């Protein structure tokens, strides 16, 4: 292996959250979460990423204490909290669509948890003020939640969940209720606030972009299990399975057979072309593998490449204009359709390729990830 994946579950300086073999079975046989183990270090922002029904929300709800695990243990800072009720856990959650108390003002919402702890009035007022300043909502302290915009409600929810200075902050689809434009600015704002407070954070999202921009590590979940755990770039560039490659971003997958297996390179023969991969793989010749190739790593040209490997020829059957880039759908002679993404780096839209054109797609020998399972 040329670029060995980093040891992603490396023993950390200070483990805050440890999950051991956590399993949740509903109604006798529906496995929502299936034997999941994980450690999260202090100060980390960890994302659980997956489609609906993958078990990410159930896992989060077990951390919050709303669901009792069928099997397994949860440790927070070394203490077993598996069977602790939610109101005794030093964990706070920012709920999906916020669950702000509609009958209480912004100030009272933020103060709610502190009052339950019996914090002295002066200290409480100071803390609430500090939290409202942190999310820039001091002016709105007297308003009721319904008098705020979606983005403001989101910030109240954040202030409320941070007010008690939890050891662990849980975010359930934190930006799901906001529109796209607002989501992008809020993502960074949210990360800045979390880092400023220094709280460890586990967030659940179905949006891979959200997970990539916010998290320091991602776990891709499917059918109750972790498919891959790692840093965003590692998960994106080095997916370990077809599922992960397909779930995170767009991908073209060529099915092929390993032809030459050398320590520093391999060639893989697929019906469309011969792939030359510039690093070794953990496989053997004759093995059936998938070659995953991201659309943005493919270049298009009308001229035939001069190399022997890593190109194929097809017909442009579709062009999708996105503004910053254009995605071309290329139908290869084998019948396979691949997507190639080209940057629109000039304003000249009458770029040379159009519907019906024959074109060559090519890429370099470190562009693809070989999927052995």
């Amino acid at each position, binding site marked *: 292996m040329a670029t060995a994946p980093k040891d992603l579950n490396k023993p950390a300086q200070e483990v805050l959250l440890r999950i051991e073999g956590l399993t949740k079975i509903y109604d006798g046989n529906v496995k929502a979460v299936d034997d999941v183990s994980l450690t999260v270090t202090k100060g980390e922002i960890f994302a659980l990423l997956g489609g609906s029904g993958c078990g990410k929300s159930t896992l989060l709800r077990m951390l919050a204490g709303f669901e009792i695990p069928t099997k397994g243990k949860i440790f927070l800072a070394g203490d077993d909290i598996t069977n602790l009720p939610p109101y005794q856990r030093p964990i706070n959650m920012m*709920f999906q669509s916020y*669950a702000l108390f509609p009958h209480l003002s912004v100030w009272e919402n933020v103060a709610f948890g502190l009052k339950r702890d019996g914090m002295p009035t002066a200290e409480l007022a100071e803390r609430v003020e500090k939290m409202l300043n942190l999310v820039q909502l001091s002016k709105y302290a007297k308003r009721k939640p319904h008098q705020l915009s979606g983005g403001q409600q989101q910030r109240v929810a954040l202030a409320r969940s941070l007010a008690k200075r939890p050891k662990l902050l849980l975010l359930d689809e934190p930006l799901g209720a906001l529109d796209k434009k607002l989501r992008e600015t809020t993502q960074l704002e949210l990360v800045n606030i979390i880092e400023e407070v220094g709280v460890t954070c586990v967030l659940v999202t179905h949006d891979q972009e959200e997970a990539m921009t916010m998290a320091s590590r991602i776990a891709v979940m499917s059918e109750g299990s972790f498919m891959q755990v790692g840093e965003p770039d590692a998960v994106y560039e080095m997916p370990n399975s077809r599922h992960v490659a397909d779930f995170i971003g767009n991908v073209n997958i060529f099915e092929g057979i390993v032809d030459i297996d050398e320590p520093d390179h391999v060639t893989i023969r697929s019906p469309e072309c011969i792939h030359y991969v510039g690093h070794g793989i953990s496989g053997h010749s004759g093995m059936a593998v998938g070659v995953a190739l991201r659309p943005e790593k493919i270049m298009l040209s009308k001229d035939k490449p001069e190399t022997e490997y890593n190109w194929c020829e097809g017909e442009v059957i579709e062009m999708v204009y996105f503004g910053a880039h254009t995605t071309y759908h290329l139908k290869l002679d084998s019948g396979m359709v691949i997507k190639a993404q080209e940057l629109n780096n000039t304003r000249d839209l009458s770029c040379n390729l159009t519907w019906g054109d024959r074109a060559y797609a090519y890429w370099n020998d470190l562009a693809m990830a070989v999927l052995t399972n």
Partner: protein
Amino acid sequence: MAKKLSSFAGVKSNLLNGRSVVIGVPYLWFLLLAAIPLLIILKISLSEMESTTISNMIDWRDGWPKLTLNFVSYQFILTDSLYYKTYLSSIQYALITTVLCLVIGYPFAYFMARSPKHIQPTLLMLIMLPFWTSFLLRIYAWKTLLVSNGVINNTLMSLGLIDAPLPMMNNSFSLLVGMVYSYLPFMILPLYANLSKLDIRYLEAAADLGTSPFKAFWLITVPLSKAGIIAGSMLVFIPAIGEYVIPELLGGSSTLMIGRVLWDEFFNNNDWPMASAVAVIMILLILLPMALYNKSQADQLEAKA
């Protein structure tokens, strides 16, 4: 183009007409059967002769109706302490009934709203089941349960738990039993409707912030069900003030309720002006909580907008 526009306008005016008919019919109904009778009662309450009825309520002079306002009946009501005491006692009984219905009905509605979805329709059905039997019959049935030689006293005595029959009939106890029994569904239904809509996530958020389930009930569930509490209380309190049948059948002579005074003035004394005056004052008494209720409803609508 112009033709098209005018045909659109035609459709619109038709819609408007349809709308005014739909809205107008109930208003006409109320005008004929609520507003006009109320005005008649108001007029009669201000007549001077004791023998005034609908047929002679308007005083004609030279072909014109003459409007004379006479406050004799109101004066009498305000000076005779019987009326004052009866109003007070009616309000008292209605209040106690409302509080008892709330105390019994709230937990009932709460657990109904929390029970599995598939059995909720059955539970709801059971609440409404008593309405299938005549109200009068059900109240009369209570009589057979509560009288000195009734089912309850006989059972307790034969078990040797008591020596003499408990005085459970023709007093405020039997009155309240009957009232609470009859009005309980009117408390439970609006409470259930409200509580079943309560978003569980609010309770989860409260728990997450360190609130025990008991405290979360008082801090979240009760305040958020305020509208249901008010609606249920109004539905019980307002008809309970003017209740006639239950005091007549279960209350005995010792329990003062304004509905019975009203009956006596109309049918025993034949004093229509006095009876009307009693009714008008009762309406005024009921209007106060109604106004408060309307205000809270309006506030809520405003809060949602």
